[in-house]
């Protein structure tokens, strides 16, 4: 949430006074469009008739300041600076076919449209934030399910997206390194399931990306990596395996994804299931 304190630290439009105040203020911007809207509002000008030279100069000053303060200036801020410079140069050029009535499209038109579009959603976001949020302003009477859901039903403590991302990293690392694939020996998901569970019998938990390094590097073909990944998904489905990730202070999953054997009844039934896979 934007606290009133953060947003209250105003920067004078004419320049830069207290560096500290600026640092606070700059971090309060949600990107170049947000910064531009702020400058336009401060300058009290009509958004459809932006004095582009003036606003561009102020914008550049802000971005330069961000550099000086060692703030991480995202590429999008620089891209916008370039866009402003381009519009400014277009404004200085005499319109093509000078003398005719029609002066051609306003070079600012596209930027104005983007600013207005962003402003709509920025306001919508503010309205969302002002609602009575459950867990912040109002709290629900919610009786938890009496029986904890069985291991099969419980969602993973890690999102599928995060898991796929991690697997993509594994694949990316493997390409170009020892891709012999000389043996035409078929790789079975079942064998990989056994290998994964064996590895987990030796230690309590393993980092997800390490589990792909069970075999010597020359044997790590793409097919083997994919079979191992499918084996992990299958073991999760069979409730033999738990995939999880730590939480940071904000309750957002963070850090490496890890695997461990599932506990509780049914944790050993996977062997029977594996036996049935042909």
């Amino acid at each position, binding site marked *: *949430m*934007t606290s009133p304190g953060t947003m209250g630290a105003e920067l004078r439009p004419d320049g830069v006074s207290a560096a500290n105040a600026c640092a606070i203020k700059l971090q309060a911007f*949600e*990107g*170049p*469009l*947000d910064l531009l809207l702020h400058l336009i*509002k401060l300058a009290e000008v009509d*958004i*459809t008739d932006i004095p582009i030279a003036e606003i561009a100069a102020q914008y550049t000053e802000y971005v330069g300041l961000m550099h000086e303060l060692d703030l991480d200036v*995202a590429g*999008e801020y620089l891209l*916008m600076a370039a866009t402003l410079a381009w519009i400014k140069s277009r404004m200085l050029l005499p319109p093509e076919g000078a003398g005719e009535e029609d002066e051609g499209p306003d070079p600012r038109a596209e930027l104005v449209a*983007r600013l*207005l*579009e*962003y*402003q*709509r*959603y*920025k*306001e*919508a*976001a*503010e*309205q*969302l*934030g*002002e*609602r*009575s*949020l*459950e*867990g*912040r*302003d*109002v*709290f*629900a*009477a*919610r*009786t*938890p*399910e009496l029986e904890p859901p069985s291991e*099969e*039903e*419980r*969602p*993973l403590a890690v*999102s*599928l*997206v*995060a*898991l796929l991302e991690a697997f993509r990293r594994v694949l990316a690392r493997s390409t170009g390194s020892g891709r012999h694939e000389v043996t035409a020996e078929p790789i079975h998901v079942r064998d990989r399931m056994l290998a994964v569970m064996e590895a987990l019998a030796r230690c309590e938990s393993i980092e997800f990306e390490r589990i792909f390094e069970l075999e010597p590097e020359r044997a790590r073909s793409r097919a083997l990596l994919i079979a191992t990944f499918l084996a992990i*998904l299958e073991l*999760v*489905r069979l409730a033999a395996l738990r995939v999880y990730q730590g939480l940071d202070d*904000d*309750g*957002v999953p963070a850090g490496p994804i890890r695997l461990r054997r599932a506990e509780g009844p049914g944790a050993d039934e996977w062997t029977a299931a594996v036996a049935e896979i042909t």
Partner: protein
Amino acid sequence: MDREGQKRIVEALVLGAPEPVTAQKIAEIVPGLETEDARALLAELGREYEEQGRAFEIWEVAGGYQLRTRAEYASYLRLLHRERPLRLSRAALETLAVVAYRQPVTRAEIEAVRGVEVDAVLKSLLDRQLLRIAGHREVPGRPMLYATTRRFLEVFGLGRLDDLPTLREMEELLAPGADEPGPPPPASAAGAGAGEPGDEAEGAETEPAAELH
């Protein structure tokens, strides 16, 4: 069974439910109660709580009904829930707003509106089950599509997506005095949930967030 008896059962069901409970579900459980009756009883309960000055009220969220503490007690409940407070950054709110109004939407479309990269914030919103992946767009690259979840409706106290206030039109933004954002939605969106139950929530988003089981 008399009406008063039915009303107490309805009250018990709303109190003891693991998630917002629909009028339909209540009608299935309470003998001799139609969906319409259930709604009428829920509205009566809401009025009772108000008249008696109770610390809670009935909300209509995510297509169902739920008892929630009144906003004026927030500061005390925050102390109780200190462990895991709900925090939504401006980046998170802006991203949610774009998705909520334009869903299903690709990451590139969100970034075009906000003018910044949204990778990290999208991931965090997916993990918190406020957004879900709603398939792919059938264009080259098959980009993933994002949509809001049932949890989103719960957190923001919305009965259904249609309950979102309409976006301001461009013309309005250009009108004189358009600098000031419109009045905030009544913080007593609670009021809407407390009194008059609206239409059946058929259209409401009920898909659970994308999860891997």
